[in-house]
């Protein structure tokens, strides 16, 4: 491994994450299937998908919490199967459920976790103080974590994740339970550690608007990778603008539009969708052609939801409701934030 390597990433660096033909099942349930992709060093990379899409399973495999069943995966050039300790050494993991000890203070948590990563003595103490200062926790560091608010706890979690200066920060739904301001701080922090420390950031999210802040997005659907690109390129793939039409009988209207304009409208959950360039020119033409059939018509620049519909044929949130995972604590948290996220993406 490159000794004395600077913080600038070069072509010779191994990929931050490389996954090949990865598959995982829980009993009969196939959680991820034949997944292959790689994450570049220094990238902020988002795994986007509804609950049950397999992104949390992927997170668990990458965090070394569960073993690989099929396929291969490596992190920073170290194989997950044969060198898990080397991987763990360079990995900062932030779980969705807090992993800090509530009965300890913020600084005690960092000291204990630092020792788990081989840090000790004065260096550990100064690093803990540095991390607490960086996350604005200095004046709260001697309080028990159970007395801190959810946002502050998440910051302790982040401080813990970065204490041993990992080269890859892996986060599962990091913005769960955070208000918009705290969420914005979080992304500022990601950009900061990427710029100053050359850290690669990989996170999972089910919030479309959050995914859009990443360099690249991997869209997951039912355990498979359905799209992987920059947010802009993903939107461009939708093909210009997205027109949504509400109609009494979307099926026959779709047939009529297809017949008259040689377009290919889709019916997605009772709404008629058209993806085409220069959408604004089509609005008056459609209304003039079928004045009695159209209840309402909207024009939008494609969002990630449009991308999701484009690649899967399903609406994002409905997909989530179809999910029948057992109602664990996490699922409830997700359900709560989903409503929150739903509002925000609907703008």
């Amino acid at each position: 491994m490159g000794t004395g390597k600077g913080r600038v990433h070069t072509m010779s660096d191994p990929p931050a994450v490389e996954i090949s033909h990865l598959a995982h099942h829980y009993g009969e349930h196939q959680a991820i299937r034949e997944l292959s992709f790689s994450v570049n060093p220094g990238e902020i990379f988002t795994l986007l998908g509804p609950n049950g899409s397999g992104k949390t399973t992927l997170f668990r495999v990458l965090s070394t919490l569960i073993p690989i069943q099929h396929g291969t995966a490596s992190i920073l050039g170290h194989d997950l199967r044969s060198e898990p300790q080397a991987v763990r050494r360079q990995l900062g993991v932030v779980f969705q459920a807090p992993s800090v000890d509530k009965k300890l203070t913020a600084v005690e948590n960092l000291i204990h976790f630092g020792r788990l990563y081989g840090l000790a003595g004065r260096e550990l103490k100064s690093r803990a103080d540095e991390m607490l200062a960086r996350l604005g926790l200095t004046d709260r560091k001697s309080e028990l974590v159970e007395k801190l608010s959810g946002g502050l706890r998440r910051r302790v979690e982040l401080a813990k994740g970065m204490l041993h200066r990992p080269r890859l920060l892996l986060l599962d739904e990091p913005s769960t339970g955070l208000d918009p301001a705290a969420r914005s701080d979080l992304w500022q922090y990601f950009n900061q550690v990427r710029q100053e420390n050359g850290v690669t950031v990989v996170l999972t999210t089910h919030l479309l608007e959050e995914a859009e802040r990443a360099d690249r997005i991997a869209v997951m659907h039912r355990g498979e990778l359905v799209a992987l690109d920059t947010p802009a390129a993903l939107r461009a793939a939708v093909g210009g603008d997205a027109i949504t039409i509400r109609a009494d009988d979307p099926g026959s209207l779709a047939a009529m539009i297809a017949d008259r304009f040689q377009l290919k409208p889709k019916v997605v959950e009772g709404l008629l969708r058209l993806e085409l360039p220069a959408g604004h020119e089509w609005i008056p033409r459609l209304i003039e052609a079928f004045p009695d059939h159209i209840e309402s018509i909207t024009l939008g620049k494609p969002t990630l939801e449009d991308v999701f519909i484009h690649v899967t044929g399903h609406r994002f949130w409905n997909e989530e409701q179809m999910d029948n995972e057992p109602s664990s604590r996490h699922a409830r948290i997700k359900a709560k934030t989903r409503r929150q996220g739903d509002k925000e993406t609907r703008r």
Partner: protein
Amino acid sequence: MSQTVSSIPITVPAWPVVGTLAQRELVRFFRQRTRVFGALGQPIIFWLLFGAGLQSARVGSGDKLDFAHFFPGTLVMILLFTAIFATISIIEDRREGFLQGVLVAPVPRWAMMLGKVLGGAAIAMLQGLVFLFLGWLTGAVDWYPVLSTTPLAVVASLVLMLVISIALTALGFLIAWRMDSTQGFHAIMIVFLLPMWLLSGAFFPMDVGGWLGAIVRINPLTYGVAGLRHYLQNGGNEIAGLPSVSVCWLVSLTFAAAMLIAAWLIAGTRSTADLQ
């Protein structure tokens, strides 16, 4: 800034890990006042009630059954309850997420297990010591001749207490590792751990016959209780009718070693509770 990765060795020194996890157990214990109170109060009450109640009932034929007689058994009960309750916390650790953080750290599993076990054993020892001190105090005021020991026997009894504590905490770890709820643990407590204590010679005399006697004889805790009896009731001189001192040591050490190995092996397995 020293940002180079190569400056950090890949293998983490294991003993600081053991130490830090054990220290955490102690800190958590003392921050939960009800745990301190409950773990100490209950055995004292049991001791007083059993001692007083059974003395008046005169269960054994002419045997001297008094506070001193029940002292070693009650001491083992304190060790059992405290050790077991200390390791139940592994279930909480898992549910609250702390354990996940440990599992993805570059820490050998045996170090994680040993930190947890030694932390629990240290709590059990602390309580055992408080109870021992209480025994001395009541003996000193000549309320009852609770203890009559030589200094060497005191040291030996403390080491034996530590061995028993480690064996029981490791047993607790073994049971708790695969569990996803503390309710399940309470069931084990009632059907397995409490009978294990009752049939350790702490409560019934060693010489009960039949299947009950057989269980008493194969119960490894019997030898811990008998060992402590030799030291605490008779200054390290062997009491007739009990297993010899060397047999008590041999069985207790084997018990502790076996439990530690079993706990180490199970710590390498994954629990489905991680996936909730």
